[in-house]
């Protein structure tokens, strides 16, 4: 029999269940093989919860039928040679369906095409906290490599038994085990035939070092690319289960408004329309989107809106006023004495930087399809936290978690914005009332109003340097925007770095790179100011105060590609840089800008050097680094949520400008591949050097220092 690795499964894709969802699925071996058929399976078991990772609330509460949470990943080699790998991570455009499959194929010694990934399905995949924090490549890829290597050993053992030769004499390659002495070989498919062999293993480091990777480390195209270019791939809003109704939520006129009265009589008369009122939640479902819109429009509701606490006009003074006077210990780092450092300094500087609230604006809006069957709930939704969404649903509907299944179709991006269950809760509430499946797809306006935002923030810095440009003091206070990337990589003995939390007037949450963007904007702008104060070249000043070799390396690599220092050749031209280290990724970004006579800032060229250890997929990584810089243009130059009286004033793409083709600079990505260092994630950190690089280039061009994001042309006119 021939191995079924060719032709059977041309493209690894999400595991399509035919028939009913699998209930009572458990780790019991016979059940596992019932689901996937005979073969060879390997599970990893975590010895303890990952250190330093946020715990989901209530995570300890385990429903009796759900998967044990210490199972972190698993893999199955079927009788057809197909390798199925399970992970709770989700694909949101960061290309991990491809890169994880590469790692598995590499370790198991099978062709890439024979690996399929089952991702983000609470009934099938192991518990996972969520796809965020650039954790997939540094944690999930090694786990999957480890299960794959153990599965490979099991297959070799099977062949050794069959031939009665020592296992160490055999070679596993190209989906078969070969005995070089006799020339015999057996395909994995043949070795898996009729077996129900399972092994549990502890988590451990992978075995194949990056220097010996054959499938990983290569630019393999996105796995199901054809489905995406033909429109065949179904994102959550594209799902149309039989009998599905379209849901619409009646949104209050302002945040925190409460419902005083509701007249739903007109909607209730409409054929096929279901109306739900549950506290302040009012929603309708209709047979088509238009019918649901009409029904929602017919609702007569009276709301009571509370006095708004803040607006985008006073937000920065508000954040400073309302800040907790002292951060807790975890968000505070001190060393030496700021006062002594400042006294010993030849030059001192103080400056304040601000960043606005911005919206993730994923092109696929938040959406969910919910269906109840015999008291069990299935929800399809684009989220970064399928297990977190399941928990929110369990809390909302007072259900044990094993009666809820959350499935995440590969999603139209998230950028940190899809952690919560909002649309899932709405669809599930409507579906329960309608007794039919219900789909809720947020409009762009809902998306830009009722989701959550990247936090606005204020950052105050006090610093001092010696006459020859050595840092003596560094005091850094961040109000509200967050503590990611708050530390400084530069050498300074006297430090005080603190994050002050604030009860934000707008709902806020994760965003690609978190506060590292704000903190790097402030720090790297300030470093530029200090360099000018010291009369030093900004690169020279940084390197003078920097002993971290990896960060020096990216600065030097970017400088070389950019041609730093460059001579100005046209009016309005300017050059600048920014960089740092975050989530074990090292970035240095250089920008060339041109400030037009209208004061418009045009970014002409960006060079971004990035190093994240051993590279898994250079093509995917380039795409991430380049894309992060394009996305970063928005927060740097245009994007700001305007709000007043509890309302968002610009919840439309016509009024909220995101980067377009016209804004595109020439982007050069310089990748440093460190095969001697474990791979870190790359989805976020490449973004954080751009804004300060642009701001510093604008200063170079105009002599004006812009300390607010976005850097609007109006700031240059002042």
């Amino acid at each position, binding site marked *: 029999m021939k191995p079924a690795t060719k032709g059977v499964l041309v493209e690894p894709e999400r595991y399509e269940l035919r028939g009913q969802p699998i209930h009572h699925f458990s780790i019991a071996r016979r059940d596992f093989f019932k689901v996937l058929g005979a073969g060879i399976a390997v599970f990893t078991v975590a010895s303890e919860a990952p250190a330093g990772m946020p715990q989901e609330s209530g995570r300890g509460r385990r429903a009796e039928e759900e998967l044990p949470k210490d199972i972190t990943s698993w893999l199955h080699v079927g009788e057809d040679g197909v390798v199925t790998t399970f992970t709770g991570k989700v694909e*949101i*455009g*960061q*290309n991990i369906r491809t890169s994880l499959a590469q790692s598995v194929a590499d370790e198991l010694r099978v062709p890439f095409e024979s690996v399929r990934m089952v991702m983000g399905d609470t009934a099938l995949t192991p518990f996972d906290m969520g796809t965020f924090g650039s954790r997939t490549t540094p944690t999930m890829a090694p786990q999957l490599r480890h299960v794959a290597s153990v599965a490979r050993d099991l297959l070799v053992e099977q062949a050794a038994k069959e031939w009665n030769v020592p296992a160490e004499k055999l070679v596993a390659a190209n989906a078969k085990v070969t005995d070089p002495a006799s020339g015999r070989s057996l395909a994995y498919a043949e070795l898996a035939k009729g077996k129900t062999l399972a092994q549990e293993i502890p988590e451990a480091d992978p075995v194949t070092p990056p220097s010996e990777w054959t499938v990983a480390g290569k*630019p393999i*195209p*996105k796995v199901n*690319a*054809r489905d*995406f*270019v*033909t*429109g*065949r*791939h*179904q*994102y959550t*809003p*594209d799902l*149309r289960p039989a009998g599905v109704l*379209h849901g619409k939520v009646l949104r209050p006129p302002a945040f925190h408004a409460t419902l005083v009265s509701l007249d739903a009589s007109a909607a209730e008369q409409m054929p096929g329309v279901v109306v739900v009122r549950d506290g302040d939640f009012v929603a309708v479902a209709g047979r*088509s*989107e*238009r019918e649901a819109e009409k029904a929602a429009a017919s609702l007569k509701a009276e709301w009571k809106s509370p006095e708004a606490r803040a607006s985008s006009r006073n937000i920065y003074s508000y954040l400073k006023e309302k800040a907790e006077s002292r951060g807790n210990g975890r968000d505070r780092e001190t060393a030496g004495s700021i006062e002594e450092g400042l006294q010993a300094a030849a030059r001192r500087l103080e400056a304040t930087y601000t960043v606005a609230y911005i919206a993730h*604006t*994923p*092109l*696929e*809006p938040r959406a969910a399809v919910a269906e109840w069957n015999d008291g069990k709930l299935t929800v399809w939704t684009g989220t970064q936290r399928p297990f977190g969404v399941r928990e929110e649903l369990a809390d909302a509907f007072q259900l044990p978690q094993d009666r809820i299944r959350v499935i995440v179709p*590969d*999603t*139209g*991006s998230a*950028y940190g914005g899809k952690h919560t269950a909002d649309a899932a809760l709405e669809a599930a509430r409507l579906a329960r009332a309608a007794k039919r499946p219900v789909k809720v*797809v947020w*409009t*762009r306006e809902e998306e830009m109003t009722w989701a959550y935002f990247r936090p606005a923030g204020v950052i105050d810095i006090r610093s001092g340097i010696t006459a020859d440009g050595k840092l003596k003091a560094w005091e850094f206070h961040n109000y509200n925007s967050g503590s990611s990337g708050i530390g400084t990589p530069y050498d300074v003995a006297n430090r005080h770095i603190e994050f002050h939390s604030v009860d934000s007037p707008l709902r806020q949450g994760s965003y690609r790179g978190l506060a590292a963007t704000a903190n790097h904007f402030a720090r790297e702008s300030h470093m530029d100011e200090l360099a000018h104060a010291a009369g030093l070249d900004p690169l020279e000043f940084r390197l003078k105060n920097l002993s971290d070799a990896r960060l020096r390396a990216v600065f030097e690599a970017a400088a070389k590609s950019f041609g730093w220092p460059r001579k100005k050749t046209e009016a309005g031209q300017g050059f600048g840089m920014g960089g740092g280290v975050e989530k074990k990724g090292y970035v240095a970004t250089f920008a060339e800008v041109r400030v037009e006579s209208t004061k418009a800032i045009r970014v002409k060229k960006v060079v971004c050097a990035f190093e994240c250890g051993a590279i898994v997929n250079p*093509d*995917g990584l380039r*795409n*991430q680094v*380049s*894309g*992060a*810089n*394009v*996305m970063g243009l928005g927060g740097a130059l245009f994007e700001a949520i305007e709000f007043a009286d509890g309302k968002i004033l610009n919840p*439309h*793409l*016509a009024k909220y400008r*995101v*980067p*377009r*083709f*016209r804004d*595109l600079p020439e*982007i050069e990505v310089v990748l440093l591949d460190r095969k001697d260092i474990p791979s870190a994630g790359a989805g976020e950190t490449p973004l954080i050097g751009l804004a300060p690089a642009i701001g510093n280039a604008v200063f170079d061009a105009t002599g004006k220092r812009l300390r607010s994001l976005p850097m609007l042309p109006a700031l240059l006119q002042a």
Partner: protein
Amino acid sequence: MGKSLELTVNGKRHSITSDGDVTLLQVLRDELGLTGTKYGCGEGQCGACTVLLGGMARRACQLPVSTVAGQSITTIEGLERDGKLHPLQHAFIEAGAFQCAYCTPGMIMSGVALLGQKARPSREEIAHALDGNICRCGTYPRILEAVERASASMAGGA
């Protein structure tokens, strides 16, 4: 209730039961099940719903279906012929011109419209023609490359 409208989509005639004021986007997605055309903003700003109308790129979210009755519409599902991708679809795969790929169908339709009007557009002309299409993942450089590749391969008769 609306009277029945006739629509030709990807060469197939359909009788539409939706009201005439329903958008073409809603009819394509909900009534005809052609979900390759995406909703992104509903205000004609993002281009995710781009379809071809008489060879021109149009925003399906901005077109009441009654205004396109009797006209020939092409959606992303209509580009593949007998299992063979349109050169621009092929070029998107070759150039890796996507991340989450939600914008991809709209991008491809805008690109196909451009190539129909101008066989060998310059990079600036491509950027200009596609400026109404948003890619939040920022894969613009590769999308430009994909359109250039398709243009070259179509000119070469490949």
